[in-house]
Protein backbone atom coordinates (compact mmCIF):
# COMPACT_ATOMS: atom_id res chain seq x y z
CA UNK A 1 0.00 0.00 0.00
CA UNK A 2 1.23 3.51 -0.84
CA UNK A 3 2.02 5.67 2.18
CA UNK A 4 -0.84 7.79 3.46
CA UNK A 5 0.14 11.47 3.36
CA UNK A 6 -1.07 13.86 6.01
CA UNK A 7 -0.78 17.61 5.51
CA UNK A 8 -0.10 19.21 8.90
CA UNK A 9 1.54 22.34 7.55
CA UNK A 10 0.94 25.58 9.43
CA UNK A 11 -0.40 23.70 12.44
CA UNK A 12 1.33 24.25 15.76
CA UNK A 13 2.11 21.42 18.14
CA UNK A 14 0.37 19.43 19.42
CA UNK A 15 -2.11 19.66 16.52
CA UNK A 16 0.12 17.71 14.08
CA UNK A 17 0.40 14.95 16.69
CA UNK A 18 -3.38 14.92 17.21
CA UNK A 19 -4.03 14.77 13.45
CA UNK A 20 -1.52 11.99 13.13
CA UNK A 21 -3.03 10.04 16.02
CA UNK A 22 -6.48 10.33 14.48
CA UNK A 23 -5.20 9.11 11.10
CA UNK A 24 -3.13 6.25 12.53
CA UNK A 25 -6.21 4.96 14.34
CA UNK A 26 -7.74 4.15 10.94
CA UNK A 27 -4.62 2.33 9.69
CA UNK A 28 -3.39 -1.23 10.09
CA UNK A 29 -0.10 -2.39 11.65
CA UNK A 30 2.65 -2.13 9.01
CA UNK A 31 0.96 0.76 7.12
CA UNK A 32 3.15 3.77 6.43
CA UNK A 33 2.18 7.38 6.95
CA UNK A 34 4.04 10.53 5.88
CA UNK A 35 3.29 13.71 7.83
CA UNK A 36 4.28 17.05 6.34
CA UNK A 37 4.71 19.78 8.95
CA UNK A 38 6.09 23.28 9.39
CA UNK A 39 6.33 23.53 13.21
CA UNK A 40 9.82 22.30 14.20
CA UNK A 41 8.26 21.19 17.50
CA UNK A 42 7.24 18.00 15.65
CA UNK A 43 10.90 16.95 15.53
CA UNK A 44 10.49 16.21 19.19
CA UNK A 45 6.80 15.48 19.60
CA UNK A 46 6.10 13.02 16.79
CA UNK A 47 9.01 10.68 17.66
CA UNK A 48 8.00 10.90 21.34
CA UNK A 49 4.39 10.05 20.49
CA UNK A 50 5.60 7.15 18.31
CA UNK A 51 7.78 5.82 21.14
CA UNK A 52 4.92 5.71 23.64
CA UNK A 53 2.61 3.97 21.14
CA UNK A 54 5.14 1.60 19.65
CA UNK A 55 5.25 3.04 16.11
CA UNK A 56 8.46 3.22 14.14
CA UNK A 57 9.89 6.49 12.80
CA UNK A 58 11.44 5.44 9.47
CA UNK A 59 12.65 8.79 8.22
CA UNK A 60 12.83 12.48 9.09
CA UNK A 61 13.41 14.78 6.14
CA UNK A 62 14.14 18.29 7.34
CA UNK A 63 14.08 21.02 4.71
CA UNK A 64 14.42 24.71 5.50
CA UNK A 65 10.71 25.31 6.21
CA UNK A 66 9.17 21.88 5.89
CA UNK A 67 9.64 18.65 7.79
CA UNK A 68 8.37 15.32 6.53
CA UNK A 69 8.28 12.46 9.00
CA UNK A 70 7.62 8.91 7.81
CA UNK A 71 6.18 6.48 10.32
CA UNK A 72 5.34 2.79 10.16
CA UNK A 73 2.34 1.86 12.31
CA UNK A 74 3.27 -0.51 15.11
CA UNK A 75 1.52 -3.68 16.23
CA UNK A 76 -0.21 -2.33 19.36
CA UNK A 77 -3.95 -1.77 19.27
CA UNK A 78 -5.16 1.82 19.38
CA UNK A 79 -7.34 2.51 22.36
CA UNK A 80 -10.18 5.02 22.06
CA UNK A 81 -9.72 8.73 21.66
Amino acid at each position, binding site marked *: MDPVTLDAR*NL*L*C*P*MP*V*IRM*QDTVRKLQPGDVIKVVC*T*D*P*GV*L*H*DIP*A*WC*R*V*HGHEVCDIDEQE*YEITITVRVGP*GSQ*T*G*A
Partner: protein
Amino acid sequence: MSKQPKAVALISGGLDSLLAARVVMEQGVHVEGINFFTGFCVEGHTHALRKKDRQRPKRNNALWSAEQLGIKLHIVDIIEEYKDVVINPKHGYGSNLNPCLDCKIFMVNKAREWIDANGFDFIITGEVVGQRPMSQRKDTLPVVARDSGAGDRLVRPLCARNLPPTLPEIEGWLDRGRLYGFNGRSRKPQMALARQFGFEDYAQPAGGCCFLTDKQYAVKLADLWNTRGKRDYDFDDIMLLKVGRHLRPGTNFKLIVGREEGENRFLEGYRKRFINIIPTSHTGPLALIDGDPDADDIELAARLTARFSQGRDAGRVTVAVKQLDGMTQTLDVIPMPSDEIPEDWYV
Protein backbone atom coordinates in the same frame (compact mmCIF):
# COMPACT_ATOMS: atom_id res chain seq x y z
CA MET B 1 -12.20 -8.69 39.83
CA SER B 2 -9.79 -11.28 38.51
CA LYS B 3 -8.70 -9.25 35.49
CA GLN B 4 -6.19 -6.46 35.88
CA PRO B 5 -8.02 -3.20 36.68
CA LYS B 6 -7.56 -0.40 34.15
CA ALA B 7 -7.37 3.31 34.82
CA VAL B 8 -6.92 6.42 32.75
CA ALA B 9 -4.78 9.20 34.23
CA LEU B 10 -5.24 12.84 33.32
CA ILE B 11 -1.73 13.85 32.34
CA SER B 12 -1.11 17.59 32.24
CA GLY B 13 2.65 17.38 31.94
CA GLY B 14 3.20 18.63 35.49
CA LEU B 15 4.68 16.74 38.41
CA ASP B 16 1.46 15.95 40.28
CA SER B 17 -0.23 14.06 37.47
CA LEU B 18 3.01 12.18 36.80
CA LEU B 19 3.22 11.07 40.43
CA ALA B 20 -0.47 10.24 40.72
CA ALA B 21 -0.28 7.88 37.75
CA ARG B 22 2.87 6.28 39.08
CA VAL B 23 1.42 5.68 42.55
CA VAL B 24 -1.45 3.74 40.99
CA MET B 25 0.82 1.82 38.60
CA GLU B 26 2.80 0.69 41.66
CA GLN B 27 -0.28 -1.23 42.72
CA GLY B 28 -0.44 -3.29 39.53
CA VAL B 29 -3.14 -1.31 37.73
CA HIS B 30 -2.93 -0.92 33.92
CA VAL B 31 -2.72 2.83 33.36
CA GLU B 32 -2.98 4.86 30.17
CA GLY B 33 -2.73 8.64 29.98
CA ILE B 34 -5.11 11.18 28.52
CA ASN B 35 -4.25 14.78 27.75
CA PHE B 36 -6.79 17.35 26.68
CA PHE B 37 -5.83 20.04 24.21
CA THR B 38 -7.97 23.12 24.82
CA GLY B 39 -6.10 25.47 22.51
CA PHE B 40 -4.87 27.43 25.55
CA CYS B 41 -2.37 24.85 26.80
CA VAL B 42 1.08 26.27 27.42
CA GLU B 43 2.47 23.05 26.01
CA GLY B 44 3.43 23.07 22.46
CA HIS B 45 2.32 26.36 21.08
CA THR B 46 4.57 29.00 19.74
CA HIS B 47 7.03 26.37 20.71
CA ALA B 48 9.67 26.84 18.20
CA LEU B 49 8.13 29.69 16.31
CA ARG B 50 10.63 32.25 17.53
CA LYS B 51 14.31 31.83 16.94
CA LYS B 52 15.27 31.94 20.59
CA ASP B 53 12.86 29.03 21.25
CA ARG B 54 13.98 27.18 18.15
CA GLN B 55 17.48 26.88 19.46
CA ARG B 56 16.26 24.99 22.48
CA PRO B 57 13.11 23.28 21.28
CA LYS B 58 10.81 22.48 24.15
CA ARG B 59 9.47 19.06 24.72
CA ASN B 60 5.80 18.33 25.11
CA ASN B 61 5.66 17.66 28.85
CA ALA B 62 2.62 15.40 28.69
CA LEU B 63 4.41 13.13 26.21
CA TRP B 64 7.52 13.33 28.35
CA SER B 65 5.50 12.20 31.39
CA ALA B 66 4.05 9.29 29.42
CA GLU B 67 7.54 8.22 28.40
CA GLN B 68 8.76 8.36 31.98
CA LEU B 69 5.83 6.21 33.03
CA GLY B 70 6.07 3.88 30.02
CA ILE B 71 2.37 4.33 29.22
CA LYS B 72 0.34 5.30 26.17
CA LEU B 73 -0.87 8.87 25.95
CA HIS B 74 -4.06 9.83 24.14
CA ILE B 75 -4.14 13.51 23.20
CA VAL B 76 -7.68 14.68 22.69
CA ASP B 77 -8.70 17.82 20.83
CA ILE B 78 -11.46 19.52 22.86
CA ILE B 79 -11.04 23.00 21.35
CA GLU B 80 -14.65 23.42 20.19
CA GLU B 81 -16.43 21.99 23.20
CA TYR B 82 -14.15 23.81 25.62
CA LYS B 83 -15.34 27.19 24.35
CA ASP B 84 -18.43 27.03 26.49
CA VAL B 85 -16.27 26.41 29.58
CA VAL B 86 -14.24 29.55 28.89
CA ILE B 87 -17.14 31.73 27.85
CA ASN B 88 -19.77 30.69 30.41
CA PRO B 89 -18.08 29.21 33.48
CA LYS B 90 -20.76 28.29 36.02
CA HIS B 91 -18.29 28.68 38.87
CA GLY B 92 -16.61 31.83 37.58
CA TYR B 93 -12.99 32.69 36.89
CA GLY B 94 -9.83 32.51 38.97
CA SER B 95 -7.40 35.42 39.10
CA ASN B 96 -7.44 35.94 35.31
CA LEU B 97 -9.70 34.31 32.72
CA ASN B 98 -9.00 30.80 34.03
CA PRO B 99 -12.24 28.90 34.75
CA CYS B 100 -10.36 26.24 36.72
CA LEU B 101 -13.23 24.55 38.52
CA ASP B 102 -15.44 24.26 35.44
CA CYS B 103 -12.38 23.17 33.47
CA LYS B 104 -11.65 20.34 35.91
CA ILE B 105 -15.27 19.20 35.88
CA PHE B 106 -15.29 19.27 32.09
CA MET B 107 -12.06 17.28 31.74
CA VAL B 108 -13.00 14.66 34.31
CA ASN B 109 -16.36 14.31 32.58
CA LYS B 110 -14.58 13.76 29.25
CA ALA B 111 -12.33 11.18 30.91
CA ARG B 112 -15.45 9.47 32.30
CA GLU B 113 -16.90 9.23 28.79
CA TRP B 114 -13.57 7.84 27.63
CA ILE B 115 -13.40 5.09 30.27
CA ASP B 116 -16.99 4.13 29.51
CA ALA B 117 -16.21 3.88 25.80
CA ASN B 118 -12.97 1.96 26.31
CA GLY B 119 -13.85 -0.42 29.12
CA PHE B 120 -11.61 1.18 31.75
CA ASP B 121 -12.51 1.11 35.43
CA PHE B 122 -11.53 4.43 36.96
CA ILE B 123 -9.93 7.86 36.56
CA ILE B 124 -6.80 9.25 38.20
CA THR B 125 -5.99 12.94 38.70
CA GLY B 126 -3.05 14.61 40.41
CA GLU B 127 -5.23 16.96 42.45
CA VAL B 128 -4.18 17.75 46.02
CA VAL B 129 -6.49 19.24 48.64
CA GLY B 130 -5.63 22.88 49.26
CA GLN B 131 -3.04 23.06 46.49
CA ARG B 132 -4.82 25.63 44.34
CA PRO B 133 -7.17 28.34 45.50
CA MET B 134 -10.09 27.60 43.21
CA SER B 135 -10.28 24.07 41.92
CA GLN B 136 -8.42 22.12 44.58
CA ARG B 137 -10.08 23.07 47.84
CA LYS B 138 -11.59 20.65 50.30
CA ASP B 139 -15.06 21.89 49.34
CA THR B 140 -14.47 21.89 45.56
CA LEU B 141 -12.90 18.44 45.09
CA PRO B 142 -16.26 16.74 45.77
CA VAL B 143 -17.92 19.14 43.30
CA VAL B 144 -15.56 17.90 40.55
CA ALA B 145 -16.37 14.27 41.38
CA ARG B 146 -20.12 14.92 41.51
CA ASP B 147 -20.63 17.32 38.58
CA SER B 148 -18.40 15.33 36.22
CA GLY B 149 -20.48 12.24 36.85
CA ALA B 150 -17.34 10.31 37.80
CA GLY B 151 -18.38 10.02 41.47
CA ASP B 152 -16.41 7.38 43.32
CA ARG B 153 -14.61 6.31 40.14
CA LEU B 154 -12.38 9.37 40.50
CA VAL B 155 -9.21 8.73 42.51
CA ARG B 156 -6.75 11.36 43.67
CA PRO B 157 -3.86 9.17 44.82
CA LEU B 158 -1.82 12.06 46.23
CA CYS B 159 -4.49 13.12 48.73
CA ALA B 160 -6.81 10.10 48.81
CA ARG B 161 -6.36 9.58 52.53
CA ASN B 162 -7.96 12.96 53.22
CA LEU B 163 -11.02 12.01 51.19
CA PRO B 164 -13.74 9.36 51.50
CA PRO B 165 -12.77 5.92 50.07
CA THR B 166 -13.37 5.56 46.34
CA LEU B 167 -14.66 2.56 44.40
CA PRO B 168 -11.19 1.14 43.58
CA GLU B 169 -10.33 1.24 47.30
CA ILE B 170 -13.64 -0.35 48.29
CA GLU B 171 -13.26 -3.04 45.63
CA GLY B 172 -9.70 -3.75 46.79
CA TRP B 173 -8.06 -2.76 43.48
CA LEU B 174 -6.13 -0.11 45.40
CA ASP B 175 -4.73 -0.36 48.91
CA ARG B 176 -5.66 2.91 50.63
CA GLY B 177 -2.63 2.51 52.89
CA ARG B 178 -0.36 2.92 49.88
CA LEU B 179 -2.05 6.11 48.71
CA TYR B 180 -1.08 9.51 50.13
CA GLY B 181 -2.54 12.22 52.33
CA PHE B 182 -0.88 15.36 50.98
CA ASN B 183 -2.58 18.67 51.56
CA GLY B 184 -1.90 22.37 51.33
CA ARG B 185 0.28 24.45 49.08
CA SER B 186 3.67 22.98 49.98
CA ARG B 187 5.40 21.19 47.12
CA LYS B 188 7.87 19.40 49.38
CA PRO B 189 5.99 16.08 49.66
CA GLN B 190 5.68 15.87 45.88
CA MET B 191 9.36 16.62 45.43
CA ALA B 192 10.30 13.95 47.94
CA LEU B 193 8.07 11.41 46.19
CA ALA B 194 9.59 12.37 42.83
CA ARG B 195 13.03 11.67 44.27
CA GLN B 196 11.81 8.33 45.58
CA PHE B 197 10.57 7.34 42.11
CA GLY B 198 13.73 8.70 40.48
CA PHE B 199 11.94 11.42 38.46
CA GLU B 200 14.23 14.30 37.60
CA ASP B 201 13.93 17.18 35.20
CA TYR B 202 10.13 17.35 35.53
CA ALA B 203 8.22 20.46 34.49
CA GLN B 204 7.29 22.98 37.15
CA PRO B 205 4.91 25.49 35.61
CA ALA B 206 4.73 28.65 37.69
CA GLY B 207 1.08 29.68 37.27
CA GLY B 208 -1.23 27.05 35.89
CA CYS B 209 -1.30 24.70 32.99
CA CYS B 210 -2.73 27.17 30.49
CA PHE B 211 -2.53 30.65 29.01
CA LEU B 212 -5.81 31.63 30.66
CA THR B 213 -3.90 32.09 33.92
CA ASP B 214 -1.51 34.49 32.19
CA LYS B 215 -2.40 38.13 32.87
CA GLN B 216 -1.13 39.44 29.55
CA TYR B 217 -2.97 36.79 27.60
CA ALA B 218 -6.20 37.34 29.53
CA VAL B 219 -6.01 41.08 28.78
CA LYS B 220 -5.71 40.30 25.06
CA LEU B 221 -8.65 37.90 25.13
CA ALA B 222 -10.78 40.38 27.08
CA ASP B 223 -9.85 43.07 24.53
CA LEU B 224 -11.00 40.78 21.74
CA TRP B 225 -14.37 40.18 23.44
CA ASN B 226 -14.89 43.85 24.33
CA THR B 227 -14.16 45.20 20.88
CA ARG B 228 -16.23 42.57 19.10
CA GLY B 229 -19.11 43.14 21.50
CA LYS B 230 -19.50 39.43 22.17
CA ARG B 231 -17.72 36.77 24.14
CA ASP B 232 -16.71 34.34 21.47
CA TYR B 233 -13.57 33.13 19.73
CA ASP B 234 -12.40 30.66 17.16
CA PHE B 235 -9.23 28.63 17.10
CA ASP B 236 -7.38 31.12 14.88
CA ASP B 237 -8.21 33.96 17.28
CA ILE B 238 -6.64 32.22 20.26
CA MET B 239 -3.61 31.16 18.26
CA LEU B 240 -3.04 34.70 17.02
CA LEU B 241 -3.23 36.06 20.57
CA LYS B 242 0.02 34.20 21.21
CA VAL B 243 1.86 35.57 18.21
CA GLY B 244 3.32 39.00 17.44
CA ARG B 245 2.85 42.49 18.86
CA HIS B 246 -0.77 43.53 19.15
CA LEU B 247 -1.54 47.22 18.76
CA ARG B 248 -5.04 48.62 18.97
CA PRO B 249 -5.31 52.21 17.74
CA GLY B 250 -9.13 52.05 17.64
CA THR B 251 -12.06 49.87 18.63
CA ASN B 252 -12.68 48.99 14.98
CA PHE B 253 -9.33 47.36 14.29
CA LYS B 254 -6.06 46.09 15.68
CA LEU B 255 -2.73 45.34 14.10
CA ILE B 256 -0.78 42.14 14.65
CA VAL B 257 2.88 42.64 13.76
CA GLY B 258 5.30 39.74 13.43
CA ARG B 259 8.33 40.14 15.67
CA GLU B 260 10.67 37.99 13.68
CA GLU B 261 11.01 35.63 10.78
CA GLY B 262 9.35 32.64 12.45
CA GLU B 263 6.30 34.69 13.42
CA ASN B 264 6.13 36.33 9.99
CA ARG B 265 6.08 32.92 8.40
CA PHE B 266 3.32 31.77 10.72
CA LEU B 267 1.27 34.92 10.00
CA GLU B 268 1.71 34.24 6.25
CA GLY B 269 -0.78 31.43 6.69
CA TYR B 270 -3.44 34.02 7.64
CA ARG B 271 -2.94 36.43 4.72
CA LYS B 272 -6.13 35.35 2.97
CA ARG B 273 -8.24 36.02 6.05
CA PHE B 274 -6.96 39.47 6.95
CA ILE B 275 -6.01 42.69 5.19
CA ASN B 276 -2.23 42.58 5.47
CA ILE B 277 0.70 44.91 5.09
CA ILE B 278 4.28 44.21 4.14
CA PRO B 279 7.08 46.76 3.59
CA THR B 280 8.57 46.54 0.10
CA SER B 281 11.25 49.25 0.15
CA HIS B 282 12.87 47.87 3.31
CA THR B 283 13.04 44.56 5.11
CA GLY B 284 10.20 44.42 7.58
CA PRO B 285 7.50 42.46 9.29
CA LEU B 286 4.23 41.11 8.01
CA ALA B 287 1.30 42.79 9.76
CA LEU B 288 -2.33 41.63 9.79
CA ILE B 289 -5.24 43.99 10.35
CA ASP B 290 -7.97 42.39 12.43
CA GLY B 291 -11.24 44.33 12.22
CA ASP B 292 -12.91 46.76 9.92
CA PRO B 293 -10.54 49.64 9.10
CA ASP B 294 -11.28 52.64 6.85
CA ALA B 295 -8.71 54.22 4.50
CA ASP B 296 -7.24 56.44 7.25
CA ASP B 297 -6.90 53.44 9.57
CA ILE B 298 -5.06 51.52 6.86
CA GLU B 299 -2.66 54.43 6.40
CA LEU B 300 -2.07 54.51 10.15
CA ALA B 301 -1.51 50.73 10.19
CA ALA B 302 0.97 51.14 7.33
CA ARG B 303 2.89 53.80 9.31
CA LEU B 304 2.99 51.51 12.33
CA THR B 305 4.21 48.59 10.23
CA ALA B 306 6.91 50.85 8.75
CA ARG B 307 7.98 51.73 12.30
CA PHE B 308 8.85 48.06 12.88
CA SER B 309 10.75 47.74 9.59
CA GLN B 310 14.40 48.38 8.81
CA GLY B 311 13.23 51.70 7.38
CA ARG B 312 12.09 53.01 10.76
CA ASP B 313 14.58 55.91 10.54
CA ALA B 314 14.12 56.50 6.82
CA GLY B 315 12.07 59.43 5.52
CA ARG B 316 9.55 57.20 3.81
CA VAL B 317 8.80 53.51 3.55
CA THR B 318 6.84 51.86 0.76
CA VAL B 319 4.42 49.13 1.81
CA ALA B 320 2.09 46.79 -0.05
CA VAL B 321 -1.40 46.53 1.39
CA LYS B 322 -3.25 43.43 0.30
CA GLN B 323 -7.03 43.66 0.57
CA LEU B 324 -9.37 40.76 1.19
CA ASP B 325 -10.42 40.73 -2.46
CA GLY B 326 -6.78 40.10 -3.41
CA MET B 327 -6.16 43.63 -4.74
CA THR B 328 -2.83 45.11 -3.72
CA GLN B 329 -2.40 48.80 -3.04
CA THR B 330 0.99 50.51 -2.68
CA LEU B 331 1.41 53.19 -0.02
CA ASP B 332 4.35 55.45 0.61
CA VAL B 333 4.30 56.40 4.30
CA ILE B 334 6.32 58.14 6.99
CA PRO B 335 7.19 55.59 9.70
CA MET B 336 5.49 56.52 12.96
CA PRO B 337 8.10 57.61 15.53
CA SER B 338 8.09 55.29 18.55
CA ASP B 339 7.41 58.13 20.98
CA GLU B 340 4.22 58.96 19.10
CA ILE B 341 2.76 55.51 19.63
CA PRO B 342 0.59 55.77 22.76
CA GLU B 343 1.45 53.17 25.39
CA ASP B 344 -2.14 52.04 25.64
CA TRP B 345 -2.20 50.95 22.00
CA TYR B 346 -0.11 47.95 23.01
CA VAL B 347 -2.59 45.27 24.06
